[in-house]
């Protein structure tokens, strides 16, 4: 362990005068927090001893493969296993008849089956599973299964979904093949546009892309006596998987144990419960032997749940000084074949539009279409990178049109900290100004923007993201994160938490916080995480929630343990408990450091005094002021902010371009571990660059008179282009620290936000370099060239979408803003409005608090009636 970095000089340590300080223990110099301590899982990962799901093996374990649909849409006529059964080693099979119960991550869209019972909806939809004694045999058996289908018409785009309300891909939806429609207006939008000096209208397109985790999804299910099963899986959300397994397997959750293995990357791609996970468990129970399923890369592209392709229409009114008077955003999401997180994704394309710049009036209209392609879902930034790209590019155009520096345009209209936005999001700390100033200074943006030679350019953009979704996926009043400590005479502190390490460093955050409070070494801790039998629930590694939520729960559990031990030690040493310091594996008197006990002796004193020691901590986010329907998506305890300047080089002769340098500043509140935090920032930059430079989850049809095919263009790591480290430019990262009262030690998120400004910054930099606007991503060289050709011909130097799908968004929800004296509800809330299909099970993210309370009351009443 490196010498710890101390934030303050010990000589100035406030604990020297404990009488002046009521909480001396907290004010001592921090040993772990803020230091670049080595991540607790680092050694195992670099030496290859970490056990990922695919590393697990058990006696008599069988291997399972899925038989996936080869047609994009159709009904299953027959499934013939006869050839597969002849393959040596074949053990058994499952079909949709074995898993008839639907599931899905959101209670409003439980539209998936572990195996399709009757209908397939995209190439890759699983229709059967086979098990064999070896992976080779299982693979051959899966290839040998013959499935016959009756094809149905297919839908490949939002436009086709609008034009083709029937036949439906799903029986439920807001309107035909439009899964979800949203329309909401905050404030006086007409008045805002009327008051504007200039109005800017743009169309943007953001192509879909996928997470591309290095580790392909894998699951091992081990059956036990009495209808129990343990499921080891690469998942970001063991708790939600636990619920889905209980539902589909029709087993009490208490008989299912889910253990999330270390994940080789997630990025949102492992946050749904997946069909293969359920199939592995079902197969294990059916065959009475452990069952393993490991997806190959192509199957990961079919699991997908990645970035939605989003078309955007954006209209912004500004004063001549550059203040926004009104903003209208329309988004059209190509959702793929299933719901996944899509309803939330739809709302997210509109929700965070307001959290960076003052926006007195805002309208959001959105829709999500079902299409016969792998389902889209949450990817790093979940629904927000798309509109953020549009907004930040449009602001660049506005700045140019108004003759302002884009940095100054933004700086004069930043939201105020702790304010409430037009759409009723309560903000926390906001240091976006410092972020902008940092990257502007670092890159020389003020001096160099607009003044670089042809082919070189600088672009600036900002972004913001949640620090945890304010509401859980399903409605409940329980903690969103829990931490439990067990401490005994050995001096070992066992830390239990349901959080899932996906490479982001959450284990290290958990360990760092507990070790900090108790003044012990990381090696004094034993972590037990992501095990639904043993660990208290944490909702999972999504929505950038873990550091803040788990961190607060860990802080509470550790402080309770500290207080317990302090009481025992204080009594034993006859020192006031609040004068005791927990540091350097000792508990000692602040005014007489020699007087104290080792941590182990302190625990012994406490165990003798109180009996077996255990403490718990939990966290529930504060309530959000928004009460209108849909207000559940967007609230967060606080928000992170980022600003970036990217310098690019563009070859005007070919349109080829690449980033030369990235400067990025991230308002992290406080970096609990700056090295881990910078790693997250750089990872976000890398992923953002991939999306703007080359990544696309693209599909192709064949000539319709010859084929009904609708296939992924290139479901492989070779042809789905993602940058290599050769393509990665140098990155200069500034961590902007301004501790937020909501975060543990002031920490905010860092896992997702830094991706957001990268894409628009690149587009803006290309404009600065060659004067060409590309209003879509990824920005391929032919697009730059086309825009430059247009420029040469005297046309608008732009490449981008020219149309936007026209659709009826339904009745617009009208919400008064805080400035208008609103109360957070809609003027015209239409609670009675029935949506087809799954209305009956509508709870969770999509329900208002009132509705959930009503449901809870109804349920309680029913129980009481018994």
């Amino acid at each position, binding site marked *: 362990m490196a010498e710890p970095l101390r934030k303050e000089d010990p000589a100035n340590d406030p604990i020297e005068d404990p009488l002046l300080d009521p909480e001396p223990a907290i004010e001592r110099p921090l040993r772990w927090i803020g230091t670049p301590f080595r991540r607790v899982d680092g050694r195992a990962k670099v030496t290859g001893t970490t056990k990922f799901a695919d590393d697990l093996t058990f006696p008599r374990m069988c291997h399972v493969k899925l038989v*996936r649909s*080869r*047609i994009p849409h159709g009904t299953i006529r027959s499934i013939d296993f006869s050839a597969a059964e002849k393959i040596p080693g074949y053990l058994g099979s499952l079909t949709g008849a074995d898993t008839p119960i639907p599931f899905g991550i959101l209670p409003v869209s439980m539209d998936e089956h572990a195996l399709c019972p009757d209908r397939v909806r995209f*190439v890759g939809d699983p229709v059967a599973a086979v098990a064999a004694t070896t*992976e*080779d045999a299982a*693979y*051959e058996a899966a*290839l040998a299964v013959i499935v016959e289908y009756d094809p149905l018409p297919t839908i490949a785009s939002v436009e086709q979904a609008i034009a083709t309300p029937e036949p439906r891909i799903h029986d439920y939806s807001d309107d035909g093949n439009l899964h979800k429609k949203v329309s909401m207006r905050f404030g006086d939008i007409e008045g805002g546009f009327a008051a504007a000096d200039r109005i800017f209208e743009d169309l943007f397109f953001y192509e879909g892309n996928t997470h591309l985790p290095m580790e*392909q999804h894998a699951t091992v299910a081990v059956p036990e006596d009495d209808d129990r099963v343990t499921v080891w899986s690469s998942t970001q959300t063991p708790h939600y998987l636990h619920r889905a397994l209980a539902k589909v397997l029709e087993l009490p959750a208490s008989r299912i144990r889910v253990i999330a293995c270390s994940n080789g990357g997630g990025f949102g791609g492992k946050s749904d419960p997946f069909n293969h996970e359920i199939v592995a468990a079902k197969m294990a129970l059916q065959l009475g032997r452990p069952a393993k399923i*490991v997806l*190959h*890369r*192509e199957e990961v592209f079919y699991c997908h749940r990645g970035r939605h392709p989003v078309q955007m229409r954006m209209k912004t009114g500004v004063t001549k000084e550059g203040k926004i008077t009104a903003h209208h955003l329309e988004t059209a999401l190509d959702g793929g074949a299933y719901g996944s997180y899509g309803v939330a994704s739809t709302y997210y394309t509109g929700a965070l539009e307001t959290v960076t710049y003052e926006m007195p009036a805002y309208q959001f209209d959105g829709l999500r279409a079902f299409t016969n392609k792998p389902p889209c879902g949450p990817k790093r930034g979940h629904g927000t990178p798309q509109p953020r790209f549009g907004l930040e590019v449009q602001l660049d155009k506005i700045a140019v049109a108004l003759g302002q520096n884009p940095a100054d345009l933004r700086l004069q209209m930043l939201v105020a900290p702790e304010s409430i936005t037009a759409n009723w999001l309560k903000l926390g700390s906001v240091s976006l100004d410092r972020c902008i100033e940092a990257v502007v200074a670092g890159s020389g943006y003020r001096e160099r923007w607009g003044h670089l030679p042809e082919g070189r350019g600088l672009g600036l953009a900002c972004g913001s993201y949640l620090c945890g979704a304010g509401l859980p996926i399903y409605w409940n009043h329980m903690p969103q994160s829990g931490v439990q400590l067990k401490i005994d005479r050995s001096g070992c502190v066992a830390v239990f938490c349901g959080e899932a390490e996906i490479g982001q460093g959450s284990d290290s955050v958990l360990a760092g916080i507990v070790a900090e409070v108790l003044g012990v070494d990381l090696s004094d801790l034993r972590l037990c995480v992501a095990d639904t039998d043993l660990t208290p629930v944490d909702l999972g590694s999504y929505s950038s929630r873990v550091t803040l939520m788990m961190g607060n729960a860990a802080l509470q559990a550790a402080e309770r343990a500290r207080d317990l031990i302090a009481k025992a030690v204080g009594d034993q040493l006859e020192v006031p408990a609040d004068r005791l310091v927990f540091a350097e594996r000792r508990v000692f008197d602040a005014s007489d450091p020699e007087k104290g006990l080792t941590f182990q002796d302190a625990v012994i004193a406490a165990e003798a005094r109180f009996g077996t020691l255990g403490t718990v901590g939990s966290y529930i986010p504060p309530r959000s002021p928004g009460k209108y329907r849909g207000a559940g998506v967007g609230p967060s305890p606080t928000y992170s902010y980022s600003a970036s300047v990217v310098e690019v*080089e563009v070859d005007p*002769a*070919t*349109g*080829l371009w*690449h*980033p*030369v*340098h990235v400067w990025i500043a991230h308002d992290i509140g406080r970096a609990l571990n700056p090295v881990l935090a910078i790693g997250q920032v750089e990872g976000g930059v890398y992923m953002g660059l991939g999306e703007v430079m*080359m990544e696309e989850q693209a599909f192709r049809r*064949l*000539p319709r008179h*010859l*084929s009904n*095919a609708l*296939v*992924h*263009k*290139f*479901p*492989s790591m*070779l*042809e789905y*282009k993602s*940058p*290599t480290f*050769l*393509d990665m*430019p*140098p990155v200069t990262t500034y961590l902007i620290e301004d501790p937020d009262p909501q975060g543990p030690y002031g920490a905010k998120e860092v896992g997702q936000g830094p991706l957001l400004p990268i894409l628009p910054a690149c587009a803006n930099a290309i404009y600065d370099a060659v004067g060409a606007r590309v209003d879509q991503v990824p920005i*391929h*060289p*032919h697009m730059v*060239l086309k825009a430059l050709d247009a420029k040469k011909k005297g046309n608008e130097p732009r490449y981008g979408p020219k149309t936007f799908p026209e659709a009826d968004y339904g009745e617009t929800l009208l919400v008064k803003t805080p400035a208008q004296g609103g109360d957070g509800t809609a003027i015209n809330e239409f609670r009675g409005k029935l949506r087809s299909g799954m209305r009956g099970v509508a709870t969770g993210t999509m329900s208002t608090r009132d509705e959930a309370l009503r449901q809870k009351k109804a349920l309680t009443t029913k129980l009481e009636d018994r």
Partner: protein
Amino acid sequence: MLRLPAFDYIAPKSIEEAAAILAGEGTAEATAQGQALPVRLVAGGTDLWPNMKRRHQSAKTVVSLMEIPGLADIQANDPQGEIRIGATALLSDVAHHPQIRARYPAFAEAVESISSPPLRNMGTIGGNLCLDTRCTYYNQTEDWRRGIDYCLKEKGKTCWVATSSPKCLAHTASDAAPMLQALGARVRLVSREGGGGGTSERTIPIGELYRNDGIDYLTKRPEEILTEILLPGEADAGHCRSAFWKLRRRGSIDFAVLSAAVAVWMDGGGVVTKANIVLGAVASAPSAAEEAGAALVGQKLTEESIREAAGLARKVATPFDNTDFQAQWRGGMVERWVAGVLGGAGTLLSSFSPSESQEHS
């Protein structure tokens, strides 16, 4: 992961033995009359194994050349003479060979641009020359290809790249081939001599190894083994200048979507006496732009003569939408790449791909 099907694996210890196996001797099932030989050669396996995992190439028997002594040797003892490269020489060994680097730097660079370091440590020069043609409708898994009812190259009836095409449009993907062709290299092909127990061989210019047909892309007969590449001694004797430019998305790993290889011979006054311009990845075989090369003869390499040659070279390229980047844009890049590589030949500039010009600090 994708799994290999079952097959027999033989690793003969001599060319004669390998040739005998290919001729069907000793493998009873190998040569049913009129059927394609279910026997395939493998060297590094970086092309064959993935193809077999995806099931678009198959084999009853795979014959490895990797245990044949001497077949990986690089003979370059005579500084004026030809360089002989054994077929199983690793790409990394070829790229790093001091004589090759000194005498054929553009060839060394072309080889060094292939894929990534781990694959160059496994893949061989002979394997790269025999690389299967590629296409985004073909280099897919069995399941995926069933979804499009296969394609003309394998089991299907239609070339999905251009449905009216009577022939397969899969593109050549070798980086070594266009460069070696520009340099006038030859390859040695060995096969079993009819009945006598010995072998026969033929040596052909590398351009004659290829046929512009995505399926039947090699003129090498199935029973022939490519054993050696012969780099001519004269190429470095005069004023030959060569260069290689490669267009691809990323600075590593990717196959070329367009490559341009040139070798230019000049007299003492810088007047071109001979120029070979060969394009890769824009047809099913390396495409020699003979008209463009001829136009340079008798001229110096000037901006104007280069521009004219580049325009002529554009005519031989037929890029389709079956690899990365928009096809039309790729076609538009041919002139620029040929101009660039000819400019490079003048100054011995090195190979180029978009992201290699970026700064790394």
